[in-house]
């Protein structure tokens, strides 16, 4: 019995260690590549054991700061604005829907739910946003389409409000003459910090990682987020690989890009913030995913 349990322990640890390594090693290659001397890359390829270390790629980023820093600033701005806005919009919709005495509440819940089952598709969405709302090449293009609010977050928050906030508290507050908006701000929000953290985290990651909106709604490189810059650099790699023509639009920023190490360095600085923050938020994150999966 004892022997068997020891074998299981060893076996499980070994396999989990191997899987964990598989998850981390690609990042290691990325970081080491960004620190490898360019000539070394050309000769030997990306490698875990580079012949020559060099910080040239990072120095280059520092010198070519305008494009990268601008993109960094946009990513940070969009993440902060977007997460704040989506928390406000989501909770302001979820709270009334959590009240059983809301007339027509079920209709709105159905409308929300239906968006999780059916959608118009990319082409109509693109037409509506560009032809009706004219958000092409504005910062709104990075903020609004698809990311601001989704049915899943609203329903998740609604069920949290329904299960954790006692209706007696809400009743006594309204007897004391508090308006619905005061109740929402002074009672509901302070009692709901865990769910706000979870939803905020999910939306924050979505904003930080989003490249799709930039890809379809932006052609002006000044508005590019970090992900869009990375995406643009990939088109360049593809250009190198297939030797086809580069689109004239990308041409300008493509010429500034010198090397293989440089690309990897930008990739590194774009994930560094989330990887550094990850140990601090992973607890909420794991909890949020588990709750979401069970509810969803």
């Amino acid at each position, binding site marked *: 019995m004892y022997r*068997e349990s020891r074998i*299981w322990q060893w076996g*499980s*640890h070994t*396999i*989990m260690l191997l*899987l*964990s390594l598989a*998850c981390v090693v*690609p990042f290691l*290659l990325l970081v080491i*590549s960004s620190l490898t001397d360019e000539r070394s*890359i*050309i000769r*030997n*390829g*990306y*490698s875990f054991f580079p012949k020559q270390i060099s910080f040239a790629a990072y120095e280059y980023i520092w010198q070519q700061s305008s494009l990268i820093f601008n993109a960094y600033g946009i990513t940070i701005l969009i993440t902060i604005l977007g997460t704040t806005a989506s928390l*406000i919009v989501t909770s*302001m*919709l979820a*709270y009334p829907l959590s009240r059983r005495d809301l007339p027509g509440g079920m209709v*709105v819940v159905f*409308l*929300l739910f239906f*968006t999780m*089952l*059916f*959608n*118009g*598709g*990319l*082409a*109509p969405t693109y*037409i*509506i946003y560009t*032809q009706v709302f004219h958000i092409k090449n504005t910062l709104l293009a990075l903020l*609004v*389409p698809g990311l*601001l*609010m989704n049915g899943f977050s609203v329903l998740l928050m609604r069920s949290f409000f329904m299960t954790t906030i006692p209706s007696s508290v809400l009743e006594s507050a309204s007897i004391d003459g508090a308006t*619905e908006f005061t109740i929402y701000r002074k009672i509901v929000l302070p009692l709901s910090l865990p769910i706000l953290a979870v939803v905020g985290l999910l939306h924050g990651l979505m904003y930080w*990682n989003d*490249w*799709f909106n930039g890809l*379809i709604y932006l052609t002006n490189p000044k508005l590019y987020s970090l*992900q869009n810059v990375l*995406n643009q650099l*990939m088109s360049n*790699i*593809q250009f190198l*690989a*297939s030797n086809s023509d580069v689109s004239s639009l990308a041409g300008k920023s493509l010429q500034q890009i010198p090397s293989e190490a440089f690309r*990897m360095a930008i990739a590194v600085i774009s994930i560094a913030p989330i990887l550094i923050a*990850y*140990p601090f938020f*992973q607890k909420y994150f*794991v909890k949020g*995913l*588990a709750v979401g999966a069970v509810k969803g």
Partner: protein
Amino acid sequence: MMLPGIAYLLINNYMPMFGITIAFKNINFAKGIWGSDWNGVENFKFLFQSSEAFVITRNTILYNLSFIVIGLIVGVGTAILLNEIKNKFAAKFYQSVLLIPYIISMVLVSYLVYSVLSVNVGLMNNTILPALGIDPISWYNEPKYWPYILVIVNLWKGLGFSVVVYLAAIIGIDKEYYEAAMLDGASKWQQIRKITIPMITPILVMMTLLSIGRIFYSDFGLFYQVPMNSGSLFSTTSTIDTYVFRALMQLGDIGMSAAAGLYQSVVGFLLVILSNYAVRKIDKDSALY
């Protein structure tokens, strides 16, 4: 208070739903999108007469099926092993590390894949294949390797998430079953086979049925970013989602894009309804609605 949220729903979700009428139009920019003439089901006829409709449907379904099967086997296996680990700190640590790929963007994933597969400077062609005595392979021009690459990348990125879900189910199993089994002298393997797996089967069935409901949708980032939109790979990497994107953004064929999108939405919707109906038959509480 609900105004901003409802307004957003209308703009972001419901206006495009009514916009699907463009799938039935012959878009003419001189007349404007809304003023263009109706042309009935011409767009659909054109779409289904091309060989592409078959290829993108086949790819979408086959990829999803392999993702579902492989994700289920590896995910459940990993969750069971993680649950066996007695050192709780180590278990938490492994779980967090497995989730790292889940929090990065597909653009970043395409960089990681590129660092391995790049024809000139990749790890594969420069270090691994020479060590095995194999000639370099032009990865981004060889469609035959991509089904394997995409399945591996998808597993790598999604494993952490499915482990969180399955582990939550395993932890929910009453410990008394295991205590009783151990008293009867059951081995670990027997416990897993006779207790753990039967106990989580309902959840596995639900999750699988719900994924089958989404079999007509694919992760656009995975199929667009990771193969770098390389034209010579389309036969094994293009799915309905990448087709919709390319028709709209690269070919400027709005009608075709909308038609393919509507085809996806309608069939996808029916599949979700069907799979949810199946879930309801098995266990009412686990159904979406």
